[in-house]
Each structure stands twice: as C-alpha cells, then as structure tokens.
C-alpha cells in the first residue's frame, strides 16, 4: 500500500493524495442511507494524463478505482465497496470551449453545474444548459453519466441525450474519444458514428473514467414564466402531462404530490416552465398551454392556480435550493430518494405505491416527477431521516429498498440505483442483456478494477 501511495504522490503531487483517516472517513460515505465503505486512498488528478497514469498504476496493481464527481447521487455509488481509491475529479473543472453557433460546451468532467451556468451568463448570455435539481456543485459529467435530467428536459430529454461526445480513459489506460470529436475537431454530435458513448453512461463508473464531455446548450430566453396546474384527481395527471407535453412549447414540466402521514395530503400539482424571446411570444405560449388542458378547466376537474410573483420566481430558479431543504424536514440532515424512470401513464400507479409504502412504514413520502420529453418521467419517492438516529436511517433505507422493488414490479426502473437495487434490476433484466454487459466489461476492464461491487450479481 505504501508503494502505491508513493506512486500516487508522484503522479498528482503529495497534496492531492491522502490515506489519512479524515479523508477516508468522508469519502467512505455519501449523504444517503447506504452504509460506509472506506477506500484506501483518495486521489485528485488535474488532467487526463494524470488520470491515465493513475489508471495504469491501478491496473498494474489490481487496485479498485472509484470515479467521483460531486459525490451527490445519494445512493452510495462512489463508495469504495472493495477498497482501493476514490478518484475525486473536481479539480478537472475547466470550461474548454463554448460554440455559440452550434450551441455546445466542452468541459472537463469535474466542472460544476453552477460554475458552468455562471460562465455562460457572463460570456454567452444567450445560452444556457439544463440544470438538474441537484446542488450547483454537482458536476456536469457526473449528472450526464447517471442519465440525469433537469430544467430543460422537455426540450432535450435526459442529460445523457444532451451529450455530444466525450473523452474517456479506459480501465486499461487508453484514452478514447466518442462522438464527432473522434473524427473531427468539433464536438457537435454523437451521430453519425457508432454510439460508443453508451459504453460509459449508466454504468456507475464500471467501464472507465470520463475526463471531458461536450453537452448541448439551449437558448436562454429573456422572458420566462411558470404556471401551476392543480387537480384533485390523481388519475387525471397522466393525461394532463400527455396534453401539456404535446404542445412542445415548454422547457420543464414537473409534477408533485406528497403523502404526509397524519397530515393533510396536498393536491397533486403540475408545474410548467416556459420561456420566450418576446412578451407576445410568451403570451402566445401561455395561451396554447392553457388550451391543451382546457377540457379539464371546462369540466372543473382542474385549473391553473394564481401565482404570487415571489412563488413564480421560486419556481423559475435553477438550481433551486428547495430540493436540498428537504434534508432538514426532520431537523435531521438526511434524505434519500428512489428516482424511478417509467412511462407517463404509470403516474397514478406510481403514486399508489408511494402511499402504500408510506402507510406501511409510517414514513412521510414526498413524491414528484420530472417529465422527460413527452415519453417518460423520473418519478421520485423521497424519504427524510434524522441522521443522528440510527433507527430512523434504517427505516428510510428499508422504505427505499421496498420502493425499488415495487417500482420494478410496476414496470419502472430505479435510477442511479444503489448496489442492492442494481441486483434487483438485474433479476428483472433480460439475461442476454446482462450477459452482454458482462462481456463488454470483461473486454474493457479485464482485471475488474472499475468500481467493483456495482452491476454485479453476487
């Protein structure tokens, strides 16, 4: 171990590698309910070349490597389940290029959402990127690689769909490029080449380390508005979402409904964000959005709620601190959620799962959905816990586990799933699909050094 530590120091400098108890403690856990798993080292490279050298060292020595961006997935994906090193990529945070005309940004993988947003506001005020409901220190790379979504997902789909290409270091040390950048100086698209980017997306860091990526940018409109549609009937929501997404005029649509044990159940509401270049265009969009759900307004089963300016401003915030504030719901500093990807028509069924689990465990369940394009949604079940009370953390962990299983039974798929939930997904997966995953990994990572313990059966 000392030999590896010294070699890591030679690669990144002594100040950016640690085997001290303090770093091992913090990097052994995230903010969710998964139990700690400590690495032997934490290392922070500053360049692709340093990443390559570290991976070559790890490969030679058979040491596990756990790549980490913001470390904010909450589902424990950056814990070193089999020891080795956590590679914190946040020093690699340079914004390398913004192409105004073709609307893309090339960034190092550790670039944070907030810093990219601020950079665009300053240097390219006509452009913006899709911001997830994560804290602004979350990384662009991490969020793309977990199939994240965000406040432009009505336009661009999952954040992984907004990816134009990437540079990655393979577990055997080769540096590869995917997408247009592999055959052109421009990072504009994944088409028309074989889509090798998929080798790294959704794999929980088990196939390589992404070091650079290009993402799509979108117009930053000067006029923006938010509307809230409310209905008392949960069964109507799927159709409301279908109608709203059919307008193809919105930037973001989310739906929220809470199940608070022993308290009032909040009416389900749908939040619609949209932007325009002129006031007239904004009004035009507003009218068409209203027209899409006129049926429910006319029959008085739903309608738009009046919004005070402050509430409207809150709804337009991106990133928004409110999701993080859930952590203080019990004055306990903790929450984790099952984010499940599923078709829109399962909204009511997904809601019913949440209610049942909430009752069974006696735990509040904050449910929300972000609609991805017009095709599916990320339906989330959020359980808060008091970090200082072990039993409370256990309760949330058990509720999360049961929710993952219920989602799978319903036909959804847990997103950025914890290692135990990954095993449940594998049980539902076509065996040939899982076999293909294993064959690909055995080619890419013959020694099995990349984030072992993830996407595994045993």
């Amino acid at each position, binding site marked *: 171990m000392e030999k590896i530590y010294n070699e890591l120091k030679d690669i990144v400098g002594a100040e950016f590698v640690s085997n001290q*108890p*303090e770093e091992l403690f913090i990097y052994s856990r995230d903010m969710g309910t998964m139990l700690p798993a400590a690495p032997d080292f934490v290392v922070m490279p500053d360049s692709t070349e340093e990443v390559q050298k570290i991976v070559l060292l790890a490969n030679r020595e058979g040491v596990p490597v756990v790549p980490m961006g913001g470390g904010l997935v909450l589902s424990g994906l950056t814990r070193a389940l089999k020891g080795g090193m956590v590679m914190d990529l946040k020093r690699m945070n340079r914004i390398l290029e913004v192409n105004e005309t073709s609307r893309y940004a090339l960034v190092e993988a550790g670039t*944070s959402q907030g810093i990219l947003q601020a950079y665009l506001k300053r240097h390219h005020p006509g452009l913006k990127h899709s911001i997830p409901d994560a804290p602004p220190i979350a990384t662009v790379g991490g969020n793309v690689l977990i199939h994240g979504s965000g406040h432009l997902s009505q336009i661009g789909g999952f954040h992984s769909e907004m990816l134009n290409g990437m540079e990655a270091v393979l577990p055997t040390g080769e540096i590869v490029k995917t997408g247009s950048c592999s055959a052109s100086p421009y990072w504009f698209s994944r088409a028309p080449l074989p889509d090798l980017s998929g080798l790294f997306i959704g794999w929980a860091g088990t196939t390589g380390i992404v070091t650079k990526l290009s993402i799509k940018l979108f117009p930053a409109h000067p006029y923006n508005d938010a509307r809230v549609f409310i209905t008392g009937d949960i069964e109507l929501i799927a159709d409301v979402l279908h109608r709203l997404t059919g307008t193809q005029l919105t930037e973001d649509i989310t739906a929220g409904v809470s199940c608070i044990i022993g308290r009032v159940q909040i009416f389900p509401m749908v939040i619609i964000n949209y932007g325009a270049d002129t006031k007239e265009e904004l009004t035009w969009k507003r009218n068409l959005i209203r027209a899409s759900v006129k049926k429910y307004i006319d029959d008085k089963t739903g309608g738009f709620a009046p919004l005070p300016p402050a509430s409207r401003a809150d709804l337009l915030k991106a990133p928004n601190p409110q999701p993080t504030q859930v952590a*203080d719901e019990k004055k306990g500093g903790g929450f984790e959620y099952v984010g499940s990807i599923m078709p829109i028509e399962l909204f009511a069924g997904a809601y019913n799962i949440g209610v049942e689990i909430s009752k069974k465990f006696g735990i509040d369940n904050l449910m929300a959905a972000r609609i991805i394009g017009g095709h599916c949604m990320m339906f989330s079940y959020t359980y808060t816990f008091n970090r200082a009370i072990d039993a409370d953390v256990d309760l949330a962990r058990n509720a999360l586990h049961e929710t993952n299983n219920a989602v799978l039974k319903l036909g959804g798929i847990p997103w950025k799933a914890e290692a135990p939930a990954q095993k449940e997904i594998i049980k539902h997966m076509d065996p040939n699909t899982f076999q293909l995953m294993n064959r690909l990994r055995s080619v890419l990572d013959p020694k099995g050094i990349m984030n072992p313990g993830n996407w595994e059966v045993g």
Partner: protein
Amino acid sequence: MKHEELLHRCFRCGWCKLPVNFMDINCPSYLKYRFETYSPGGRLWLLRAWLTGDLDASDRFKEVLFSCATCKNCVEACGIPGIKDHLVDMIIAAREEIVNTGKLPPSIRNYLTEIYNRGNPFKKPQSERGDWAKGLDVPVYNGQEYLFYAGDVGSFDESGIKMTRAVASLFLNAGISFGILGENETSDGNDVNALGEKALSEHLAVNNIDQFTKRGIARIITLSPHAFNAMKNAYPLLGGKFEVYHYTQMLNKIIKDKLPLGSFKARVTYHDPCYLGRWNGVYLEPRNILQSVPGLDYMEMGRNMNSALCCGGGGGNYFSDMLGSGQDSSARRRVREAEEYGAEVVAVACPICKKMLEDAVKDEGLENQMRVMDVAQIVIEAKRKQA
C-alpha cells in the same frame, strides 16, 4: 460543544462551496486543499465524527478545523435555513474545545501566546504600538469626539502602518476630532475569538471596554473590519456599548464636503473584506468613496459583495498561514480574478486583506501591472493631484 445539536443537520450538499452567484469555488480552505474534508460540510461531518469518537483530533483534523477563514461564504450560500446562521459558530465552538485541550497547531499556539504575553502577535514591545503615528501630529485621545483604533496589523505591520497613516492623515485633513491610544491600545480580540480562545478574547474585550469607558470614549472608528466586528458585535455582549464605525463609513460621510479631490486615473476594483461585508453588511460605503474620485474607472469583479472571495486571512489564518501559500490560495486566486477583469488597482479596506493581496500580487508576478491600495491611500493620491 456549543451547537453540537446542529452538526448532524448539515446534509453536506455543497451549496456552501460556491458563492451565491456560483462563479467559482468561494470557500478558501476548500479552494486550496480540494478534499471534501476541507469544505464547510466536510468539516462539520468530521466534527461530528470526532465528537462521537469515530475520529481522533489528529494534526490533520486540526488543520481542517483551523484552516476555516470564518469568511461566512458558507453562511451566505447554505441552503438549510435552520443551520446556516450558525455554521461559523460551530467551527469556533469546536476550536474552543481544542483550545481547552491545550494541544494546538504550533502557529496558532504561538500567535495566542504572543497576544497573551505582549498584547500583540508581532513580538514587538507595547511601547512601540503608537510609533505608526510619528510625524503626523495625531493627538493622543483626550476627550475628542472619536477614538481612532489602529489595531495590531495597523500598528505593527509595515503595509498596515501605511494604511493607518493614510486614514489618520485624511481625518486630520478633514478636521475630524479624534485621538488614538498609542502605547495604551491593546489587541481587539476578534481573531483570538475566531480561533476559539474565548477566555483570552473576553479578557482583551473587557480590558478594552474598561479603558474606553474610563476615558469617556463613546465613538470609535476602526481601521480594521476585524476590530470593527469585535467592538460592534462582541463588546456589547460584555457591557461595552459604543458607537462603532469602520473608517470607510466615516470617510464616506466627509469625502464630498471636506476632502476636495483631484483625479486618480486608473481602472480600480474593490475587494470586500469579509468582516466588513458578509459579517456586517457594509458594502456600499467603500464603493461610494471610490466612485466619488474623479477619473477613477471603477469596475466590479464577478465575485463581489456577498459573493466576494475572502483573501484567506480571516479567522486567524493571517497569522497561522494555513491558507497563504500555493497556486490556489485565496489571495492568489483573487488577484488573478482582478487581473482577468482588467484591474490596475485592487482597492481594499482591511489591513489583513491588503497584506495578503500584496503578497499574492508578488507571487503572481503582477507587480508591474497591478497595485493593491487601501481606499484611503487612493483618496490621498487623488487629493495630492488636487493640491
């Protein structure tokens, strides 16, 4: 430990690492060290682990704890209303626990020992404390309207002395009724408190309160935002209720009527001191002064006001030097930011910021294109042109 009941409520979401406008990493210790442990949230989680016995108070643990600059960027940016106002309080409370063990990092132990033994951290005799005023005809306090409090750095540090003399000169010129304590002045205790030496900081505060009261002092103008903070916020809790002004507040009152100015032709930006800005909400007065100077081309850096990047000298770090060195020290990043925005002069209003940024300009090799000047020094230069 005080505030222990709040520690577990930190989610470690990381909002605290960035300023409210997200422009860049804005926590000085996280900026320099880059491990999660040195971020505000990481630090709080380590504190909790220490209190629960999962971690020892190792040298590294103490480095993590004492490298916080108490700049309050985390307080500004934190997304959890229930704890945000106490984030720095938790750090100071933990430092107090370490102080009580007697096992401090050497640089901090030395600083506190010097304050205890000599009343200042510069290893200078108390008799030299008023030497900064030599040749200026600054009166010793004897019932004037204001006490001008120079503080440790303004009394003993070469760069700080220039700043103190500039401010005093302007006050003399404007006919402000003020006096100084000279060799009777003692440390204000602000940074001693930030380092967790509560007993010593209270001792210093009580001594100052007694002296001010006995001399009939009702109004105080401080050179340093650190002294301003202690006297404005901590002294009242110990019975010392004075009208306290930072010198920029006073200068702002008199600049138009009492200080006719010539021009100062340079592109100038202003660096907000944390203990003036985020701690006390004084943002506009220094800017008003600078924008009153004819010919001065004023511009803001991206991180300004409540989003300003700390110089790295707060919370005792000016003396312990845990944040001063390296490419990514706050001060060096700050002058690089000023350079990026095209500033020729970085205006400051704190002797600690002044020294930290002057050193950073040298480290960055920018001496030929950028000066660090106190707001009062800029006004004096403009005044000379008028004369």
